[in-house]
Structure formats: structure tokens, C-alpha cells
């Protein structure tokens, strides 16, 4: 099992979400985050003060999938999040040791995403 964590532009989220749904990966978490990277800051002015804000808003996606699905999920994210400009974001893949479904106590890869063959069990 792997966790895919992606920091992306806001506008990239909807296409990624839609594509992952179609490909059978409905389960993910999203949060609004701020971060700084190579993307240049935004200059703002408030009354007399001029400042540059290096923390830019991004969307963070967390998605745990079976090891064999990692390539597909990462490629989907890369495809939709890439504009070619600095600030497109980053994707990380982390190992996951265990996973449990709270409602039933089931464990293992089967609980991660509702694949078509898993849907009949619902």
C-alpha cells in the first residue's frame, strides 16, 4: 500500500478528481494548504506597507492505493496538474503499513478504493 500526496494548483483539482473517479479511485482527502517553493512571491500593498508573500495557496491531495495502482494515480495527477510553469507543485509517494475500515474493522488493501469488483460487496 502506498500513500500518494500531491501539492497542486487549485484549478488542477477538479480535472484530477473527475479523472480519478472514472478510473475507480473515489477515496481521497483534500485540504487547502499554503506553502513556499520556487514559485515567486506575490507583492501586496496594504496602506503604506509593501510586502511579498512567499506562501502561496495550494491544494493538497492525499490518496492511499494498492501498490500496483500507484503509477496510474501519479500519472493522472501529473497529466492534469502540469501547466509547465513554476508552481505546478509536487507529488510524493509514501509507504503505508496498515489500513482499517472503521465501520467494520476490516483491514488490508481491499478497503482502500471501491474498485468495480469490490462494489458488489457493498
Amino acid at each position, binding site marked *: 500500500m502506498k500513500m500518494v500526496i500531491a501539492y497542486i494548483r487549485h484549478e488542477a483539482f*477538479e480535472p484530477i478528481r473527475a479523472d480519478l473517479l472514472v478510473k475507480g479511485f473515489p477515496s481521497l482527502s483534500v485540504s487547502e494548504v499554503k506553502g513556499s517553493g520556487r514559485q515567486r512571491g506575490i507583492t501586496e500593498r496594504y496602506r*503604506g506597507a509593501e510586502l511579498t508573500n512567499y506562501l502561496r495557496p495550494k491544494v493538497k491531495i492525499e490518496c492511499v492505493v494498492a501498490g500496483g495502482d500507484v503509477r496510474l494515480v501519479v500519472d493522472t495527477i501529473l497529466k492534469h496538474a502540469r501547466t509547465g510553469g513554476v508552481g505546478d507543485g509536487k507529488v510524493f509517494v509514501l509507504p503505508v503499513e496498515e489500513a482499517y475500515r472503521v465501520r467494520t474493522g476490516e483491514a488490508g488493501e481491499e478497503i482502500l478504493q471501491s474498485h468495480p469488483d469490490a462494489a458488489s460487496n457493498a
Partner: protein
Amino acid sequence: MTTLTAAAEEINSGDTAWMLVATALVLLMTIGLGLFYAGLVRSKNTLNTFMMCVGAIAVAAITWALVGYSLAFDGDAKLIGGLGHAFLSDVGFTPRDGTTIPHLVFFAFQATFCIITTALVSGAVVERMRFGPFLIFAALWSVLVYAVLAHWAFGGGWLQAQGTLDFAGGVPVEMGSGFSALAAALVVGARKDYGRQALLPHNAMYVLLGAGLLWFGWFGFNGGSGFTTGDASVLAFTNTLLTPACTLLVWFILDLVRNRQITAIGAATAIIVGCVGITPAGGFISPIWAMVLGVVVAFPCYAVVAWRPRTRVDETLDVLAAHGVAGLTGIVFIGFAAQQEWNGVADGLFYGDAGQLGSQLVAALATPVYAFGMTYILLRVLGALMPLRGSATEEAIGMDIIHHGEEAYASGEGAILIRADAPSDGAARVREKV
């Protein structure tokens, strides 16, 4: 009223006091509209949306003082007024003809109408139109569209001359803004994410608060449009309470039937629709007919609000539905329910004068054609001279940062001061590296 002394005697202090207050109330509506609109857009465009309303104050108050007022209210030529009052010439402390208030107060009251109407049109182009071109558009629109329609309906122009009744601005304000908004949305084009992503209101509380402030200000808008503290003003004032209340209740029911839930954004919309509906009719129909109007006006507006997002026309904040269609309904409704017993002026169809309905229908046809046509041409010409909207990237980042260099909800975290009273070398170096 032609000599100074005779005129001075005609000023009524009660009327003047009320009109001073009413003018301030109407100006507050533009700020309420800013809140209402700002709550309806995404958070990254909050300030820009509000600033379009603030910008309308800056621009339209000036154009109105320089030429707009004169073109609307000088003389009774059919199509447009003269330049006799340009630069506020002959607008002083003596009463405006036909009123008991100083000409200056009459001017200021009418100015706040021009301002709010100009601000209303911005609802069609928020979240993508560039701020500079909007200000230029607003300046020209306030003269070429608003002042002309105000002359037609209020200033002795051809609509007023042929008997159209419009108490507080169904023609210039409501239909004028609504059908101009449709043209503006068509020329400027849809937001890049329109129809592809859910574009949700970011703060429903602002929307409700803005609608509440608008309603509050509308008592000055309608109640002041009699220019006295007399019967017509009192009638319009009370009707401004009754009509929106009825629209609210009907909107609740329509929401329930359609979605099984009564929505807050829907309620805010209903308040606007009700206030708009009674705007032209306020001083002309009885309180009971005003309540009926509140019921009637909800249906076409609800239908257009529900239908418009299914089209490719990104008339973003539904100015057409809430103002154009509601104003048109109110104008036509006068033709049925006007009652001389209440207004002392004219009867509608229900009270024996079918001709009044005809006069109302003429306004209901001519106003949309002029407002739509003139706004369309104006924006096409402007668009040929300068880009009306920014790039897709700018739209993604948001209008607040791109056009104003500010955020509505800035946290300050991660920011480095680069130019304060005593600039530091460190900050300057950081800037060089970026």
C-alpha cells in the same frame, strides 16, 4: 417658481429633511450591493467584486455631476435632455421645478440612483473583467445608458410624455441594468471555469447581510421617489415592506417544491426581487395589490434564475433575473393594478383604463432594446480598443491579487516586508533573488 423669492418660499423643511436622509439611504445600497455581490463570488475575487461597486461611486457620481444629470433632467425633449445643468449649472438652493426640495438635494438623490445602477451592471462581469476597463465602461455607461433612460422615464422624455408610470426607476434602474447586464455578459464572455466547475458563493452571510442592507436602503429609494413626505411616499414606503415579504414567502415555497429545502441564498435573492418589483409601482398601487405583486413577481424571476445557469451565458450574478425581469414585471403590473383612489394619477386595466397598460407595455419593450443594444455596442467598441479581460492564468490566480495586490482574507503568514519606512537591505536582497 421662476423667481428666486417665490421659489425659496416653496421649500418644505419636512420634505427636505426626508430627502436628505433618503439620499444617504440609497448610497448605502451600493455598499450593501457590494457585500451581496462579494458574498456570491469565490473568495479570491471578493475585493475586486466589492471594488466594482466602490468604483461605480467614484465614476458615476462624477459623470452625473458633469453631464449625466443635465442630460437626464434638463428640459423635456423626447430623447435626451440638454446641457443647461452641465457642471451643475443652475443647480442650487432653490427648488427643482415641481418639487419642494432644494435642487441640490434633488440632484444628489438622483446621483445615488445613477451610482447604484452602474454598480448593478458589474454583477454580469465579475470574476474576469479587468478593473481599469470596467471603470471606463462604468463612466460611459452611466451617461450613454442610464442618463438617457432616466430622461425617458423621469426627466420628461418620450416614455413619461406618453404616459408610462414609473415611480422609482423600473425603467432606468431595473430594466436598464438587467438588460445591459445580459449584453455585458455576452460581450465579455463566460468565466473560464463556467460550466466545468462548481462556482459557489464563498460567503452566504455576506449575501444575506448585503440583501438586508439593500432592503433597508430601498425604503429611501422608493420612499424618497415621491420627493415629499406626502401620500405617494408613504404608500411606496409601506409597499417596500409588503412586496418583498410576499416574494420571500413564495420563494420559500418554490424552493421547497423544487428542492425540498428553503435556501438562504434564495431568500436573499427573493428580497432583491421583491424590492425591484415594487420599485416602479410603489406609489401607484394599493398595499394589497403590492402584496399580490410580491407573489406574482417571484415566478418569472425564479424561473430565469433556475434556467440561466443551464445556458452558456455567464450572466454571473443574475442581474437580468433579479432586476431586468422583476423590473419589467413591476412596470407591466402597474398597467393592471394602478388605482387613482390611491395614487391620484391614473387607473390601470382593473380600474377601467386599458390605455395605461398600453403605456406600460411600450416601456417594457423599448427599455430592454435600448439598454441591451447600447451596452452591446459600447462594450464592443471598448473591447476593440483594449482587452476587457485578463488571461486564463490571471483568472485562476484571482482578480484581488492581480488587479489590487490585496487579499480579502490575508493571513500575513510568510510575508516579507519589502518597503517600509526604513527599508532593510535584507528584504531588498530577497527581492532580487526572486
